[in-house]
């Protein structure tokens, strides 16, 4: 069986590749209601992550996540860099110093990470038309599954979370943006999907897809 560290490294690689391949669609979405740099930023950020993966093998789980976060924040630039960076950093911090954290440790860390992103975004809430609209339902679904399931099937749990992320992302289409650059458009932002929510969907789908192969 693979260690969590090995899994995490593979998952990060998978996420990175999928997001790099999504450059065009993210750029398109950001150009409707933002400044059109989201795709480029995300591609650059995850290319940089792939470059540092070799270093991951000498780090512990927590520092892999933090390193990923700092790398993203450093290279993406813009709001999505700060938000995604914060997410990974806080996830790493939230796992404390457990070598093989339990599923409950992960649930706590994910909740803390979500809260940190919301704080960093200036008290972002669901309905503001940001990545939170995808991330919050996904994290809630995860936590809920963990709390209520007798037998834990992480592949299933993540499949459900990814589904919730996508549903949440869909809801952003009819929202008028309250946070971020799209909020400058106000009502005119209605009718377009938030690019950040798409990033979150891709991240959860990548995890879910990977877990199915185990």
């Amino acid at each position, binding site marked *: 069986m693979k260690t969590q560290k090995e899994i995490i490294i593979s998952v990060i690689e998978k996420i990175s590749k999928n997001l790099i391949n999504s450059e065009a669609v993210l750029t398109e979405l950001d150009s409707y209601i933002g*400044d059109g740099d989201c795709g480029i930023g995300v591609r650059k950020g995850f290319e940089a992550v792939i470059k540092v993966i070799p270093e991951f093998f000498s780090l512990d789980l927590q520092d892999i996540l*933090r390193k990923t976060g*700092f790398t993203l*924040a*450093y*290279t993406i*630039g*813009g*709001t999505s*860099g*700060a*938000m995604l*960076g*914060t997410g990974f*950093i806080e996830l790493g911090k939230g796992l404390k110093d457990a070598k093989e954290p339990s599923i409950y440790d992960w649930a706590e860390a994910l909740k803390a990470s979500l809260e940190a992103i919301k704080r*960093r*975004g*200036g*008290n972002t*809430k669901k309905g503001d038309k940001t990545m939170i609209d995808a991330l919050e339902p996904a994290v809630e679904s995860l936590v809920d599954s963990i709390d209520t399931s007798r037998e834990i099937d992480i592949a299933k749990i993540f499949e459900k979370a990814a589904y919730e992320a996508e549903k949440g992302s869909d809801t952003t289409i009819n929202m008028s943006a309250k*946070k*971020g650059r799209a909020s*400058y458009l106000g009502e005119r932002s209605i009718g377009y999907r938030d690019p950040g929510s798409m990033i979150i969907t891709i991240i959860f789908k990548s995890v879910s897809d990977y877990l199915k192969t185990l």
Partner: protein
Amino acid sequence: MKKIINMPEDFVKEMLKGLADSRPESIGYIPEKRIIYRKDPFINKVAIISGSGSGHEPDQAFYVGRGMLDAACAGPVFAAPTLDAIVDSARLVDKGRGVLFLVKNYTGDRANFEMASEMLEFEGGPVVETVIINDDVAVKDSTFTAGRRGVAGAVFVYKIVGAKSEEGTNIDDLKKLAVEVNDNLRTMGYALKSCTHPEKGSATFELGDDEIEIGVGLHGEPGRLRIKYERANATINRLMESIISDLPYKSGDEVALLVNGLGGSPISELYIAASIAHDILKSNGIRIFKTYVNNYCTSLDMEGCSVTLLKLNEEFKRLLISPADIPVRYF
């Protein structure tokens, strides 16, 4: 769009080069990171850094110098400076006494400065403290919003804290001072005309030929209300009422008054606003220690102005009027 520019994407780079060219003796410039820093030897002091999107000149790059800022991080126009630039600037100007970030309350700026201080902590860099400036009374603070914005009043924070830092004061006391200045600071502005973003080439928001926006933010974010154009007396009265009642400033208080142009209004008009503000303050029994009128924190070529009051104590007064050797000046 007509501007004094070359390629729009070089706007920030060329402007900062112009600054460094014009002040070779005192200003250093790192083009790749858009960092402007003090070159003259300064030792045994806490380093003071600010930063934000460009387009607010002279804020902040032009406030770098003895008695004010030690470095400024400039983002692209109206976009936060990047994490790496903030981290590098802190490492560059730290003299072992720590670094104080003075940040106007915009989500992107806060996010990047907060991340930078976490990263510096993670990597064992200099000690960092951050003070968020939020002087704009137009937007009410609440747990539902990103809070009040930081606008032109920020220059009083840089000035007072920068002056104090020259005295060798430690980082905790400087942080306390910055918070205290911010607590006594209130600003509100209005726009007569939108600004043109050099890369977009079009107005960043729309304002009718006979409309003004009261309580506008530094990038044209909406404020309290959009109304028909009216005489300056009426508008400055609105701003002053909102400001005075917010702290509130009371009869007998002594204040510094800042009338700040948003970039496209000539100083003649700013002095008309100052004249009105003086009359209002007098009729409220509020004493004016010193008046500052100019373009301090702009929004590209936006027309309009903001008014700031800072309630003073003896320490604030002393630090406010102490000399600062900054690049933006006349002679």
